[in-house]
């Protein structure tokens, strides 16, 4: 086997391995938590990026764990969508890890009198645990998108979920514990639903390998069981993906978690739920999905439209900055699900491109919110008036990312929305195209309101006096990299779009 064939498994295993090392090494060298995490994630990023040309050339990459042949062994199967997600996950995890350095362990410059505790800083003892959990979450996400075995997928999904519950609760404060409990109360039963679905699927097909399953489902006689298993699996993933009526846990969990974790949750973890739905619908159920389950698409479309409108309205109504951003996530999940439900290649290309674009922009949003909270303790939107005077770089990054969320060309958000509307026109649902654009207008209301407060209004009396200046470089640079990424992926979308379209086409035309 050539070297590159092993890259995938190394990309997954390295963070996992380092996660075990971190608590041990930090006993000896206290400050090595973040550098180790950053190093592990950088390795994953490099390996994933190196995989991209290979996957583009061959269409997919297959790796047999332990050299056991599928369908008996666990297979890692990466198509272009998978490798794109791997690169996205490792990149964002790396950037947010760098951000975490100063966030959970802020150091005050000399002479600054007042401390503003964001309530999310961690004592020294907890920091290695944070990085450990962080690395496990990253590894789990990487494994989740790479694997070709449904139970393996479930295991990684649960791994990711458990660590995310812990990371939401890690500050240990009243609000974060409550948010974590609420999150677990919805997500764990959902995981059980998914597991039940997987069990049912296994029961009637006898295999766990995705490719094998696709064949057996097509020729299976147990239509009702298969449909039932599909519904269970999708509902389970949908809770994790915070699709409209099942999103209730999201505003609390994302706003009360420490900001880098919020960024990870909104930016990546909910996308994993959607990725799971897409992977299951097309790679596993394939033909069966397109032939017998197209009523699913019809339901999803309206659910998604509801998510867009509901998320936007709730975001506009919020007074707390992070809760507003959380509802914005609900809205954008609606967009991605719309891409899925329209059952059209163009729409799904739009949806998946939106996954990428939104991950970057939303992570940037949460990191900016975190910078502001960490420096000033201000959590409400009203308090953001005049923020740009003291924290210009952070506010500028926010403004740039908001262009992507609203969908102003030439950002990545615009490209996603263009394809979504195009897809709705393709399938004759012009009304949904209108919904997408109305959503853009509403997003402009809540995003530009914040930008307006930050840049064009003077601060309230006495506010912002005690903030000495911008956040440290290790916090500002990540926000700028993410915001610039959202812009670059809009302008240079031609790097990704052709391969993405091919991947989606082969995914959907698996029949």
């Amino acid at each position, binding site marked *: 086997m050539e070297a590159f064939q092993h890259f995938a498994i190394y990309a997954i295993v390295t963070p996992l391995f380092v996660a075990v090392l971190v608590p041990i090494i930090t006993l000896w060298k206290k400050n090595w938590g973040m550098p180790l995490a950053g190093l592990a994630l950088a390795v994953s990023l490099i390996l994933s990026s190196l995989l991209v040309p290979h996957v583009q050339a061959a269409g997919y990459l297959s790796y047999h764990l332990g050299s056991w042949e599928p369908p008996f062994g666990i297979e890692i199967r990466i198509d272009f969508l998978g490798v794109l997600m791997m690169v996205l996950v490792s990149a964002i995890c790396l950037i947010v890890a760098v951000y975490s350095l100063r966030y959970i362990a802020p150091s005050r410059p000399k002479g600054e009198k007042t401390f503003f505790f964001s309530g999310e800083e961690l004592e020294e003892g907890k920091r290695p645990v944070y990085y450990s959990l962080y690395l496990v979450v990253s590894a789990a996400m990487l494994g989740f998108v790479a694997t070709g075995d449904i139970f393996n997928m479930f295991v990684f999904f649960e791994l990711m979920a458990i660590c995310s519950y812990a990371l939401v609760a890690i500050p240990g404060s009243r609000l974060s514990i409550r948010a974590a409990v609420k999150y677990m109360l919805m997500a764990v039963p959902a995981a059980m639903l998914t597991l039940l679905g997987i069990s049912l699927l296994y029961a009637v097909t006898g295999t766990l390998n995705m490719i094998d399953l696709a064949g057996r489902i097509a020729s299976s006689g147990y239509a009702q069981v298969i449909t039932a298993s599909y519904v269970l699996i999708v509902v389970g993933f949908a809770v994790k993906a915070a699709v409209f009526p099942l999103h209730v846990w999201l505003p609390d969990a994302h706003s009360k978690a420490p900001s880098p974790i919020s960024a990870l949750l909104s930016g990546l973890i909910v996308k994993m739920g959607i990725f799971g739905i897409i992977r299951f619908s097309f790679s596993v159920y394939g033909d069966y999905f397109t032939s017998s389950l197209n009523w699913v698409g019809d339901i999803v479309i309206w659910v998604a439209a509801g998510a867009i409108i509901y998320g936007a309205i709730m975001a506009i109504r919020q007074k707390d900055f992070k809760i507003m951003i959380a509802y914005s996530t609900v809205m954008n999940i609606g967009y991605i699900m719309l891409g899925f439900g329209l059952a059209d290649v163009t729409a799904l290309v739009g949806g998946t491109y939106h996954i990428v674009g939104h991950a970057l922009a939303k992570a940037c949003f949460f990191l900016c919110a975190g910078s502001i909270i960490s420096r000033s303790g201000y959590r409400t939107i009203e308090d953001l008036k005049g923020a740009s005077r003291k924290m210009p770089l952070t506010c500028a990054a926010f403004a740039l990312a908001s*262009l992507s969320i609203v969908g*102003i*060309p*030439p950002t990545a958000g*615009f*490209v996603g929305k*263009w*394809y979504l*509307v*195009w897809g709705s*026109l*393709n399938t004759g649902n012009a009304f949904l*195209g*209108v919904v997408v*654009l*109305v959503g*853009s*207008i509403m997003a*402009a209301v809540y995003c*530009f309101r914040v930008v*307006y407060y930050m840049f*064009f209004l003077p601060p309230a009396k006495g506010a912002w006096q005690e903030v000495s200046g911008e956040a440290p470089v290790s916090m500002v640079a990540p926000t700028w990299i993410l915001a610039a990424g959202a812009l670059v992926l*809009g*302008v*240079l*979308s*031609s790097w990704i*779009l*052709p391969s993405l*379209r091919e991947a989606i086409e082969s995914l959907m035309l698996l029949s």
Partner: protein
Amino acid sequence: MNAEISSIRPLIAILLPGLSLLGVLLIPANYQGLKRAVHVIASLGAFGVVLSLLPGILSGNVYAIELIPIVERVSIHLTIDALGYYYGLVLTFLWVLATIYSLGYIKHKDDRYYSFMALCHSFLLGCAFSQNIFTYFIFYELMTLATFPLIIHEETDAARRAGIKYLKYAIPAGAVILFAVLLHYFWGGGDLSLVSLGILSLDTASRTVLTVIFLAYFAGFGVKAAIVPLEGWVPDAHPAAPAPASALLSGIILKAGAFAIIRVVLYVFGLSLFAELSLWIPMVVIASITIVLGSVRALAQDNLKRRLAYSSVGQVSYILLGIALMSPYGALGGIMHLAHHALMKGCLFFCSGIILKKTGKKNISEMAGVGYRLPVTMICFSVCALAMMGTPLTVGFISKWLLGSGAVQADKPFFIVVLLVSALLNAVYYLPIIYTAFFRRPEGDDEYQALQFKGEVSRTMLWPAVVLAVLVVLAGVWVTAPGFPHSLASLVVAGLFPVR
């Protein structure tokens, strides 16, 4: 002759102001003079680059450059054909004057003002030089956002409200335009070109769809082009913005909407399709209503800039009327009015700014005797006001004459009535200003004392106004000079109407 030349000059022209922004960011805060110089030089440079293309354009060349694709099959594609060049030339010229004027006018928050001026300049040049409506849309949206800080620059309550009102109109308009672009893309076979004739056709799309596309474009761009009933933001934004920004708003930015409508009607739809779908009817009706309504409402305003703003509302619709008449003279008149109005209204706003700065007066009723205090300014104002009314030997007359001829040529003489009514109303609201300035004595002795000749404003504010006033007359007399509106507009029209 008639060659399509691949050239990087469109890109350079667009980037120059943007790059000046970078230069300004890098210069430390103490060197204000240097920063301003960079801006002035950049705007002169852009004008120079555009001017250098004049001979080529006049001989029929088209300059194009294709950049990266943003979505499949559609890329950022720049091209300078006669129409785009025309708009670009007017735009860069006015921008040079406005930048110089701003040196004397803007006294606080300069950096933000000049930065966004430069950004707007870049984006508008991008609009002018767009080959397809997708590129146009990108630059248009960015320009919309970049205009906001200019409107709320003074940061008074009124300015803030005006800015927010502007966004409330402009952002939904952007969504409507995007919808139109997508429909256009879908039913136009993926070709979004703005410079080839007749992209849409009844072969590929139904009447309903085409009508919807047109109405969406018209409404979306019409917000910027201040058609009734979407013009509500204009009368608030103009008085709130500082005078040079108001001049650019009226002179160039409103025209961005009109320019887009020109492109959509004449190129995307093409005259024959447009006539066949009878879409000229709603366009002509709305344009006429706007012309009359704008003029009527201008009468009621005492605030000088508000009156000028309503006047702009009416005047931009002259352009739309000219296009909707679908005759060669009509189109010629409409297109030429784009530049003519920019020159005239630009000068008027510059003068209003001078008056505000020197005497602090905003309302016409307070401006008695201003003509003696600021003689050169008021002479320029008067020249341009007379031009707006359509006095012969000025560009205003040329526009109105051509529009009237266009109406006759298109067998729709009714619109001459619209033009006459509007001209009459123009007179009714412009003449009193001139009268008040020169022939009324102010009440009270202090005021009368203040009338004694105190000297004009600084040169940087005066010269741009004078230059514009001179041009208004010059281009009205020496109409067919190369580089003046007629030479370029006639090229455009010649390409559209094969048999004159």
